[in-house]
């Protein structure tokens, strides 16, 4: 089914970094959940919702992202009509740049696209949702912009909806990204428990309008400049989503949300409903469990060879665990090798790390140790 929306994934945000893991890649290209990259979840959700025209704006080190996506074939986005468009953007020499600037530099893409609406998503979202329902909600309410949010039981960080009218209209929003501890006072007395999920629906014409006006005033950010500053002028509605959706914004969160996948209910809802999550195909054989393997409460990708002990961990493709090795509460990325009798606990090992014989690597559960790509220990 065709749907009257195109998708834009906005990776043009310098603030979205994960210490240690985003040195070589944008946050959206950080490996997640054994065989995926973070972007796979939003991209697959868009495809499963019937969105066939998807533009990705990336500004930081894009090699790994482009290597992952290439023609978009694995998401069925290698199309004659529409398909996948990747825009590699650079901030100007004096450092000015941002989403709206990049959009204005590529307005032809928006003009040439046939769809009337745009679903904008940020690159740090783990979810499996149907954008068609959000678009329906948007058009029924005749909204200018729809903000998807999630209600938490306590105060959250990031972008929050602070005031909501009874009919779901957004009165006020705040971006708490730079505010570490909002003090309860006259301004911060309101609830900070409605976190914007980083998914917005807007008509294409309004998006172009907002982008041009903001750039003309020297502003570039969609949320802070386009949305929050114009709340009084626009009909902005909120869409509450109650399914599994998380935003990765710290190493601690990244670790926690990976471990979330060990929960069978989350595993099922995230990977199967409403659609499957696609990723780059790698043609690995099944995982081989050798004589001494003892694997419990873990998620394992294909093509691993395991002869050691693995507990409560996430293993990516082609990880080798030798005899006598122990992996506990850890995230082990692709092609990493844990040699004989080595012990790793509470760690995040990036791709192609090697922990040599008998070495011990132990982090703290609420502060996991991150080891950079290709390190030999």
């Amino acid at each position, binding site marked *: 089914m065709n749907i009257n929306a195109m998708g834009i994934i906005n990776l043009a945000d310098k603030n979205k970094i994960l210490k240690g893991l985003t040195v070589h890649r944008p946050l959206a290209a950080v490996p997640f959940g054994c*065989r995926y990259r973070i972007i796979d979840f939003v991209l697959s959700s868009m495809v499963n919702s019937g969105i066939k025209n998807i533009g990705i704006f990336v500004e930081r080190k894009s090699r790994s992202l482009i290597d992952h996506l290439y023609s978009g074939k694995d998401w069925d986005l290698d199309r004659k009509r529409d398909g996948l468009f990747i825009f590699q953007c650079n901030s100007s020499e004096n450092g000015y740049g941002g989403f709206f600037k990049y959009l204005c530099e590529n307005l032809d893409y928006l003009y040439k696209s046939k769809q009337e609406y745009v679903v904008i998503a940020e690159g740090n979202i783990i979810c499996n949702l149907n954008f068609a329902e959000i678009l329906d909600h948007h058009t029924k309410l005749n909204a200018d912009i729809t903000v998807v949010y999630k209600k938490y039981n306590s105060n959250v960080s990031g972008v929050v909806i602070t005031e909501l009218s009874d009919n779901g209209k957004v009165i006020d929003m705040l971006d708490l990204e730079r505010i570490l501890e909002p003090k309860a006072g006259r301004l911060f007395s309101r609830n900070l428990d409605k976190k914007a999920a980083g998914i917005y629906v807007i008509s294409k014409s309004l998006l172009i309008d907002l982008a041009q006006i903001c750039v003309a005033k020297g502003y570039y950010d969609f949320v802070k400049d386009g949305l929050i500053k114009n709340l009084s002028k626009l009909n902005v509605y909120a869409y509450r989503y109650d399914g599994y959706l998380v935003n990765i914004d710290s190493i601690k969160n990244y670790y926690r949300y990976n471990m979330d996948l060990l929960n069978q209910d989350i595993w099922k809802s995230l990977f199967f409903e409403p659609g499957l999550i696609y990723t780059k195909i790698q043609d690995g054989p*099944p995982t081989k*469990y050798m004589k001494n*393997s003892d694997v419990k409460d*873990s998620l394992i990708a294909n093509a691993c060879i395991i002869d050691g002990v693995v507990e409560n961990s996430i293993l990516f493709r082609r990880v080798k665990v030798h005899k006598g090795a122990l992996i506990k509460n850890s995230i082990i990325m692709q092609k990493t090798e844990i040699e004989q009798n080595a012990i790793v606990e509470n760690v995040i090992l990036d791709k192609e790390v090697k922990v040599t014989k008998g070495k011990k690597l132990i982090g703290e559960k609420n502060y996991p140790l991150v080891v950079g790509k290709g390190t030999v220990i």
Partner: protein
Amino acid sequence: MVKKECIAMILAGGQGSRLGILTQKLAKPAVPFGGKYRIIDFVLSNCQNSGIDTVGVLTQYQPLTLNSYIGIGSAWDLDRKNGGVFLLPPYVKKKGGEWYKGTANAIFQNIEFIDSYAPEYLLILSGDHIYKMDYSKMLDFHKSKGADVTIAVIRVPWSEASRFGILNVDDEDRIYEFEEKPKKPKSNLASMGIYVFNWKLLKAYLQEDEQDANSSHDFGKDINPKMLKDNCKMYAYQFEGYWKDVGTVESLWQANMDLLEDAPQLDLYDTDWPIYSVNPNQPPQYLSPKAKVSRSLISEGCVVNGTVVHSVIFSGVYIGEDTVIIDSIIMPNARIGKDVKINKAIICEGVEVADGCCITSENSNIRCEQYHVDETGICVIGSNVELSNALKECVLSSREREFKSRDFETLKAMLLRLGGLPT
């Protein structure tokens, strides 16, 4: 069309009747293998890795699964602008049409296809062998010998030589005699059913053979002996490495089990010669706190709550708590309930086994088209059967036949022997 030096034709139309219910609904080359593959993946990947980019697949028996699996060949990088993979079923011609009558006739009926690429050499392959082979080396051999025909051979143990088609060769590897299953073999070089022909010459022989009413239109029985008689230059190319014709339930089971060795002869993890397959696109596999897995292959999308010892588990299989699986092959998307015992069995795609079932060769009193125990004691349950359970007795719901389940003691003894007692 651009001329190709060598194109390949894969014989994939056979029923593989000795595989029984495994090939009831699909052709032998489409039978799942090795936890992730179908048998034909090996020959298609070999073609791709050997640099042969034009491949015809001759289909006839139950081609649906095979057709949808191969598609346009993108899984093997065979979706090419010039060349690629072609599915070639028999078709109706102006003067009627007919089924493929034999391996040689199947090629004869596709002369036009082959001629459209005007190849120098034609590589004939079987779609039902498990092996990794660089055909470009065989082609080099063929050229260096100035041969008319080259047949790939493998040394088999002398004790088994009388089960194969044996080739007798001179010091220069030139073939001087064929012996089909000889009682007293003079050599242990067995034909692998892989041939390189000079296309022009083969074409003439095929056309001649087609006129012969007494011919069975088979390469091994008719074409090759005729060529030998005519003193064609026929050479044997000796292949070294793992090769298995998985024509019987026992050999299919054994070839799967071979992969579970510590250092198997057929290395699937070698990135220099990858075996490609259609990706099932499933999430990572999950092993629960109660899982116990050793000496096994497990694929994407599986959920394991029980014990798996020395088995091959395909993608999307669910295994319930307290279930024990030993020496078995569980094909894609099967669902095995709680407290199930499975020993030395092949469970086909989509089978549902209810809680408490016991599937071992001792339960040979099941009478059902979808259940079969072969002479070596391997149980096979055909695809999409539902095995339900009533008071420790298993019922094959499709036929409602009951059988008594044997107690767990024999399995426990076996587990002890294998060193994997469930906790």
